[in-house]
């Protein structure tokens, strides 16, 4: 699995994805919203160990788990195709609306050129698509250093200029 976390290659990722077996694997695991709703009580041991992550599909409404976010040390957002845009709003809402501080992981068809925007909406961990080259993908973070919108990413990366703040100096008016 090719994983980037906080702009670095993650070698020893502990998280697994629930593959639908009746018994969950031992250790941190992402389960679906459906499974969470169906088996809440039964999952308490995982919750206590900090092993329960939740995996949201693009059509899942983030507000439905807003009240219990503290239970999940990690949330995975599924991007079935790299053109799927809903996960970006989901991440934004998790961070800014609901103040979620845990890991937000993008999974699915993620490619190099999605990394920068994912980070800016609050995604700190990315599972890249199989055919992606992890090392060279890291370069994506350096592509664009200027941002017109207020930042909301967790990581305190450098070079995030909000352009309009520099407009305080009056420009020369062309006569």
């Amino acid at each position, binding site marked *: 699995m090719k994983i980037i976390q906080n702009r670095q290659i993650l070698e020893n990722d502990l998280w697994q994805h629930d593959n639908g077996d009746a018994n969950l694997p031992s250790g941190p695991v992402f389960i679906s919203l459906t499974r969470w709703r169906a088996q809440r009580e039964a999952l308490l041991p995982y919750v206590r160990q900090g092993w329960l992550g939740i995996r949201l599909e693009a059509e899942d409404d983030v507000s439905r788990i807003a009240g219990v976010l503290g239970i999940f040390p990690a949330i995975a957002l599924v991007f079935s195709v790299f053109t799927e*845009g809903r996960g970006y709003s989901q991440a934004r809402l998790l961070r800014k609306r609901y103040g979620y501080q845990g890991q937000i992981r993008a999974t699915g068809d993620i490619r190099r050129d999605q990394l920068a925007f994912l980070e800016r909406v609050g995604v700190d961990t990315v599972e890249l698509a199989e055919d992606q080259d992890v090392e060279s993908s890291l370069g994506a973070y350096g592509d664009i250093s200027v941002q017109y919108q207020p930042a909301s990413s967790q990581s305190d990366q450098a070079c995030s200029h909000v352009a*309009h703040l520099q407009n305080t100096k009056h420009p020369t008016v062309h006569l």
Partner: protein
Amino acid sequence: MYQYNDADRRLVSERVAQFKGQTERYLAGRLNENEFRQYRLRNGLYEQRHAPMLRVAIPYGVLSSGQLRALAYIAREYDKGYAHFTTRQNIQFNWPRIEQVPDILQTLANVDMHAIQTSGNVVRNITTDHLAGVAADEVVDPRPYCEILRQWSTLHPEFNWLPRKFKIAISGAREDRAAIRLHDIGLQMIRNESGRVGFRVYVGGGLGRTPMIGKLLTSFLGEHDLLSYVEAILRVYNLNGRRDNLYKARIKILVDALGVDQFRQQVEEEWRQIKDGELRLERSRIDGMKIHFMSPQHGAPKSGIARVQLTRNNNPVFNAWYEHNTVAHKRVGYRIVTISLKAPTGAPGDLTADQMDAVAQLADQYSGGELRVSHEQNLVLADVMQADLIELWRALRAYGLAAANIGTLGDMICCPGLDYCAQAHAGTVDIAQQINARFKNVDTLHALGNIRLNISGCINSCGHHHVGDIGILGVRKQDKPWYQIMLGGSIGADVVLGKRLGPAVSEEAIVDIVERITQIYLEYRDEGESFARTIRRIGIRLFKEKVYEDHTK
């Protein structure tokens, strides 16, 4: 106009480098077609019928002479010596080579231009009234707000993968020259009873396969809330717009499915959470932006109005140009001039590199070095002294840019059509030229008064045929081009979709039919009544009967 600062320049320059990297990876086989397509669209690059097409952004239609010179350079160096202005105030080059596009973008970056987000499922160019800042009926100059929205929407990390394209237009005048109710978000600038500046917000307008007129979302949004409200709309759309069907993915479909009241509820619920946050526009930001758009210093205009009057009296050709191609400026002694890109034998909206250089020179000489692009595909010199009109007119004539046809049947909105566009079903430019040839008698043209003829080569309606006085839609039957006619469409105060006149007609018949329609108008109009008024008064049934009784298929 807005002056870039270092950060603006850095963003554009970094974007060029990013796209250069993506192009190199694609050409080296390290980026597949499907993926590269998404990145090249977001940099304005289409694969078109005969060649790639590059759509360059002209933010809310405002252009400097220096930028126009760069466009001329690009047309010569990288293209076939001309370019096309679009109904969204952008410019298109029809023949760039993919491997050269990064160089073209670098040339653009050098003059503070770009092709960012002119295509793809993102927020596109913010468009506005081509008379912004100078119109006599202006309530508030929309351009500072256009620029604020442009920056907010540029490389917005949350909205780079919308269900579909997203178009926003702003009007700041009493007459809506930006067709705001035909946009995904339409913003009408107003002042409320206390004189506070704000917007009437419309949502879900658009043409194409399912034409819809924008619905009112809120009747007053204070100016400070512009960004937070628009962000709320975009977030609701991003999360709820359809992604299963390309033809049902625009926001108008979502608004129609939910009903505007439910849609409004969702937007306002979202907006309540963010309205007083970091997106709230501070006074200093708004005022700081307004400074970029202050009117050029106008000294006392040179005397010369008398000379203009005299020339108008003695020279009917100049007079026709003055009457059709110029309008009143809000300041005495000035005039707004439209440069007609509708030469009868040309392609509507096209300009050659030589013409671009000439126009840039004229902009410097006569209009403070700035121009505008209108959505009717003409150029506007917005600050011309009356005293300079005669010289300007002569110069425009020399370059074939003074056809006195603005607002007339000759001033057609016309998409590129089958000659260029992979989507087109029918040719449009040749039809436009044939119609011009039929109406080459300029007195006949003028006798018909204001007629808006809009021609689209396919249902995507880039030529806005649904809202022309006369609309022509190219369709394909038995593998040949046929033309569907609509009558009675309008924009401005009242947005009305035209009604179909009858069965599609052949390319052999379409020009005759357009002529017949104008003859019927002349026959039935009241004294001084415009084409639009006559249709509203007598309805289209009469036209239908008379056109199709004469017409043999």
